[in-house]
């Protein structure tokens, strides 16, 4: 697991208070919303705030969110793309 992906998973667990869950229990390709982790709109807002706080990346609107929140892999790629020097 890449260092960034691990940090993304740790941020998700901490921000959403997924007590008892470990990073390796979150599948890279599983959808974050609906199936997979089964997150809701409040969780989405928490992730938006967490991503900005931890990685300094802003998710400006719902369209960007739809793209970033497809899976942990998609979110990791989104953060990597927006933190390039």
């Amino acid at each position: 697991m890449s260092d960034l992906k691990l940090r993304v998973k740790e941020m998700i667990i901490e921000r959403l208070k997924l007590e008892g869950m470990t990073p390796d229990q979150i599948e890279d390709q599983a959808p974050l919303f609906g199936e997979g982790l089964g997150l809701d709109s409040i969780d989405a807002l928490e992730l938006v705030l967490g991503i900005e706080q931890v990685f300094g990346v802003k998710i400006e609107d719902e369209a960007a969110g739809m793209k970033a929140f497809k899976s942990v892999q998609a979110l990791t790629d989104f953060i990597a793309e927006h933190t390039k020097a």
Partner: protein
Amino acid sequence: MTPAPAPVPVIVPTDIPAHLPHRYPFLLVDRILEREPGVRVVAEKLVTNGEPHLQGHFEGRPLVPGVLLLEMLAQAGGFLEAESLHGAAIFLAGVQDARFRTPAFPGDRLRLEVTPEGAFAGLMKLKGTVSCEGRELCTAHLLVKRL
């Protein structure tokens, strides 16, 4: 030279019903003391003996229910937006980390301070504090959605 920002319109007590859909006995904001749209609102609520919920909460020992302190913060949050709500309802979607440190009693002049923490997809997260004469009564994070 950049033009000076437009002054923030003052909201006097008689204007409040035009901005919130709540009415007696559930309109829980009496005055707007400070307002910087999108940044901060400070409102005021004077607790009076005539409020109906105090008759039974509790008999002989009236104090404001903690959930109403949260409702006061949510209503004050309705004045954060640059554009007023014009009577539109704000739906309370979540409450996080609420702490009730000391009760509010009849006669207390409550200061309601609300700041935004972020927004996404129509949801807004607010941080709120209820205080009285410098004492912190209640703190909470609220998630609100405009209907």
